[in-house]
Each structure stands twice: as C-alpha cells, then as structure tokens.
C-alpha cells in the first residue's frame, strides 16, 4: 500500500464532491448565455441582487418569488410568477424606486426575443404572458442624462 500523498487526498475530496454535489447540468450553458449578453452593451450600471425570496406555493399551483436589486440609491423589486392558468405563461411585476421615467426591456438571454414596457409614475411596470426562461431586465431612462441599468439574469 502506498502512502497517500497530499494531492491524492485532495483528488479524493474532488471526486467525492463531484459525485455528491455535481454541477447542475445546465449551469455552464446558462453562464455562457449570460456573459454573451454582457459583452454587447457595457454602458449601464449593473444592479446587484441583494435578496431573493420565494413565496409559498398557492393552492392553484403557480409559484412566485421576489428579487430585490440595488445600485446606490436605486432599488428595483421584481416579482416573478407563473400565471395561474397553465399555458398562460409568466408575469413580471416591477417596482422601481425612486420612480423614474424609464423604458424597460425584458430580454431572454437564450435568444433574441424581448418585450418592452414603461415605468409608470408610481415606479411600477409589468409584463404578462412571458414564456419561461432566463431573463434580464434593461432599464433605459427617458432623460438621457440619467444612467441606464441592467439586472443579472434570473429564471421565470
């Protein structure tokens, strides 16, 4: 029996963790899709995800969660939910603070499709009938002196 070297022991550790807590099958592809969207347009501030919370599943099925993003004094709360009727797609409800006149694009990371709406005077916006997938939100101010914002990708 040979003495187990340090590297052999670390090899055992790697093997154990690769088997018991494997990398999710789609993670590499997701990250590749996300970085591809990032290289296209760097002229915006990235909102940082500060909190993620999941709501209890309702009796009718659908699931929902909220994401809270922030950058400096700007806060964005997004609620992502499956529609209550199967086949209806998903909806996103957003609250931007402070309320600022902005155009919001919800863009699928995995292909070119995107949907557009506006932030209302109370800082709210919504998208309905979205397909499920990995989305990023891009917020462009009407006033070109203000900064544009983007979120990291999240699953709907």
């Amino acid at each position, binding site marked *: *029996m*040979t003495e*187990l*070297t*340090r*590297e*052999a*022991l*670390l*090899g*055992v*550790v*790697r*093997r*154990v*963790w*690769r*088997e*018991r*807590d*494997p*990398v*999710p099958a789609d*993670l*590499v592809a*997701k*990250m*590749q899709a*996300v*970085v*591809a969207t*990032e*290289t296209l347009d*760097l002229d915006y501030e*990235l909102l*940082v*995800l*500060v*909190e*993620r*919370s999941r709501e209890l599943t309702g009796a009718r099925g659908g699931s929902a969660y909220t994401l809270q993003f922030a950058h400096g004094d700007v806060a964005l709360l997004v609620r992502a939910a499956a529609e209550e009727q199967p086949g209806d797609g998903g909806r996103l409800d957003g609250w931007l603070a402070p309320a600022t006149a902005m155009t919001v694009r919800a863009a699928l990371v995995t292909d070119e499709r995107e949907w557009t709406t506006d932030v209302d005077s109370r800082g709210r916006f919504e998208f309905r009938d979205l397909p499920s997938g990995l989305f990023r939100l891009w917020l462009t101010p009407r006033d070109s002196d203000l900064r544009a914002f983007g979120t*990291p*990708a999240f699953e709907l």
Partner: protein
Amino acid sequence: MTVSTSRSTTEADNLWNQCAHAFAQWTAGDSGALDDLVALMTPVLWHVVRAYRLSEETAEDVIQTTWLAMVRRREAIIEPAAIGGWLTTTARREAWRVSKTATRAVAVEDDELAFRLPQQRSAEVAAVEIDENRQLWAAVDELPERCRRLLRIVAFENRPDYSRLAVDLGMPVGSIGPTRGRCLAKLRVALMQTGDLP
C-alpha cells in the same frame, strides 16, 4: 479502489493555464474563447461557492455575479495568468458576503444531498462503485465541518490566498496551513481504515 494518485498535482495547474490562455485569447478579440473560459471555470466556482453553505439557487447567483464582474472589469485584470485566482477569489468574496445575509443562506445538510446512482451501468459494476463511493464519502463525512469546507475549497482551487480564506472561515491566518495539514491527516487515517487503498 481507483483513487487517482499521479495526475492531481498538474490537474489544477493545467486548468489554470488553460484559463489564462482562454482569457488572453478573449481579451485579444476571440469571443469564442469566453465560452471556453466559462466552461473551464464554472465547475470550479460551483464547488468553491457551495463550500460556503449556499443553496443551489444562491450559488448560481454568486457564480453569475462573478462572471459578470469579470466581463465588466476585464480591462482592470492586467495579468491573464492570474485569471483563475481572480475568479475564485471574487466568487469567494461574493459567497462570503451573501452567506452573511442569513435569509439567503441555507445550510446544506448532508441528508439533503440525495444519493445519486450512476446511470446506465450493470448492477454488479454499480454495486462495486456504490460501495467504493460510500467508503470515500464516509471518510470525508467523518471530518469536522471546518475540515470539509476547507478541504473542498483547497481541492478545487490552485493555491488559494490564505489571508482571505482565514477571514471566510473565521480562522486566524496562521492556522490555515496547519489546519489543512491536520484535516488531510485525518482524511488519510479515515481512508486507511476503509481498507484497500492504492
């Protein structure tokens, strides 16, 4: 048992070199090299970040944050050779920050980690492999939690920065090296006790 013994020293070095190459190609204008870099390092980041007891969802968020930070700050990363360390350090810093937010951190209990059977193999081969795996897993599980976390990080990184690790694990800087040594010694003993090792 089929525990690899020889490749390991070069495994991390090779990976870090491939990363440095891909990063240099990408910054020189080859956009496809970015996909290579992401494919090479995402698995490493997964294991490093999960050692911080984050849920799978939160771990994915941390990894995404790391990749976005690299793309956005690529011009500030002057030394391509150091990209592997830059990525793992950034991911660990973010994992540590997020793990401090109690509502987002979910303890990864051992029994949550479902036992995954190898697929599409004969029952006999599978049974032998399962037995081997159980022995290896048991040896790792017997380690104190601090050892499990430290060794997981050290195993997937290439010479991590001890001062940062010390902060993350709540240990004095000077104790990381000796603790790692003790943890490895415990693992060695546990593996010896399981029987026929290489």
